[in-house]
């Protein structure tokens, strides 16, 4: 019982780390662009697929096995660096002035397109490549043998992302410019800030984070059609529970939901998928803007 609980906590931490990587990009993009990007889950999936393909290719060219790890990062930067700017410039930049419902529909349409692109390229058979996990080997924690990848690397990357992001947004010029645009776009533009560049930068950065989440998740789960939609719904639950636009809050709710889910996996597997939403609904009933969210001003 305690052993199971301990195992559930370790799984929950690793899982929370993955979800956080996607959720933080989603919330960052929302904070700046005021668009909820439904296609964000697809970036996660595509990041995973590209990482698996690149990894297979790197292994085939007889490169050192350790290279399996940097390949994950490379895949994320490739996916985010290509998809992010293309989508922001070609499509999103045209709809910033449109109604909310149309913005949602546009990202939903993008999501539909990207889901099928994955099927066309990678097919529907599950893809599983655990080379990066094997590189790091296993560690013993108490009586449990656990992979170092899930124990150290995943939570480590998530924590580094959180701290790095906090530092970036508060201490660097670019970061402060992003915060300024988030707070008040008009005022920021009046100060001479190029808001459209900030949008492009933020969207690309968020895309890289989602793809990195996918790349990091790929060695621990098999990639099948549908991972994208599950991830967008789950990371929306995380982001909504924290309050849209809240970065530190997203870490906390990712932990809450990740742990809740993995405990359910061990103790009530039928309800695994329901737990995150029960948590979300419970929080939203009490605090409609999320745990850390601020209500928006109502205009007449």
């Amino acid at each position, binding site marked *: 019982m305690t052993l199971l609980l301990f195992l559930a906590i370790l799984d929950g931490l690793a899982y929370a780390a993955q979800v956080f990587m996607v959720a933080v990009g989603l919330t960052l993009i*929302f904070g700046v662009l005021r668009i*909820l990007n*439904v296609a964000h889950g697809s970036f996660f999936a595509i990041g995973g697929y590209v990482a698996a393909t690149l990894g297979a290719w790197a292994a085939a060219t007889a490169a050192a096995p350790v290279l399996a790890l940097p390949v994950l990062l490379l895949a994320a930067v490739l996916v985010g660096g290509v998809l992010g700017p293309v989508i922001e410039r070609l*499509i999103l930049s*045209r*709809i910033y002035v449109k*109604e*909310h*419902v*149309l913005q*949602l*529909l*546009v990202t*939903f*349409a*993008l*999501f*539909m*397109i990207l*889901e*099928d*692109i994955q*099927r*066309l390229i990678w097919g*529907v058979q599950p893809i599983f490549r655990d080379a990066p996990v094997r590189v790091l080997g296993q560690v013993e924690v108490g009586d449990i043998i656990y992979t170092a990848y899930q124990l150290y690397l995943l939570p480590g990357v998530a924590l580094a992302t959180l701290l790095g992001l906090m530092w970036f947004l508060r201490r660097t010029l670019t970061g402060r410019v992003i915060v300024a645009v988030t707070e008040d776009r008009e005022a920021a533009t009046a100060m001479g800030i190029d808001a459209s560049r900030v949008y492009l930068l933020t969207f690309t950065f968020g895309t890289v984070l989602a793809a990195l989440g996918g790349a990091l998740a790929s060695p621990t789960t098999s990639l099948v059609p549908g991972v994208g*939609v*599950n991830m967008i*719904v789950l990371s*929306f*639950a995380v982001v*909504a529970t924290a309050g*849209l636009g809240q970065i530190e809050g997203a870490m906390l709710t990712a932990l809450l939901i990740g742990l809740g889910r993995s405990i359910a996996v061990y103790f009530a597997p*039928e309800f695994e*998928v*329901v737990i995150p*939403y029960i948590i*979300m*609904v419970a929080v*939203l*009933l009490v605090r*409609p803007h999320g745990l850390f969210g601020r209500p928006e001003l*109502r*205009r*007449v």
Partner: protein
Amino acid sequence: MDRRLALPAFAGAALVISLAAGAPWLKFVLTIALAKGLAVTGILLLLRAGQVSFGHALYIAVGAYTVAFTPPHVGEMLLLLPLAAAAGMIVGLAVGLFVARYRDIFFGMLNLAFSMVFYSLLEKLYAYTKGTDGIRVPRPTIAGIALERVDYEWTMLIGGLGIALVLGWLASRFLASPLGQALPAIKTRETRLEFAGISARRVLLVAYVISATLAGLGGGIIACTTLHVTPLLSYWTHSGELVFIAILGGGGSVLGPYLGAVAYELVRVYAAAAFPDGWQMILGAVLLLIIMFAARGLWGVYEDAVLRKGRRA
């Protein structure tokens, strides 16, 4: 119904019947299209309020599974369809009480979340739902008479048309009523609506419950037509399909959903067979094009082509 709608409505109904008479296998496709048209009418009501639900396939599945769970000896259409609609209404009220507090992103995504939860429950609770295998539905009697396949399909199609015409008329009456007129007010400026002493939340809840009821009825018709229900009915792709049809048909008229649904289903029969893995992609691309270049959908195209010209002449 005013004449500008009645004429195309009856012409459309006649066209559907002649299509089905010309190509018998189309009866099935067209009945499904009408059922989806019902659900899309619900989406249309919500779109009028500026809200989009990415989870209305939930209510289609609720209606369909209600039909599947009803014991076979009660297999009577006149009982099954009201039951399906009632189930949609009850679930819609329960979920609606929660989601009607939210707008825009939250509204859309919470609906998606509810439908995905329902999907996984249908898939996982194998003992009750037989998981992804789904449940076979015995062909119900209609008014106590057990019909042969061809007669049954005709009855479903004509009955579906009748339901669509009646509910389409009711929907247009609803949109013209004070409550229906309050929906666009939620879209433009909710606070002003509240200053006028009208609860925006209640207006949206009413529209939501109606939309859930319509989708439940549509789900019931789908189950009685396909005679087999699976969890896939509540999967996000089906919710996306409903939203797609609503935008394709256009939000300007209660006929838009049926126009969109019939066009969509007819194209799908051919295109989905030709590109089974690229179907969502085509839908997504068309959706983008409509939103960017023809925001009023097929009904808008029709209006421009027929009604405007008629006025000039």
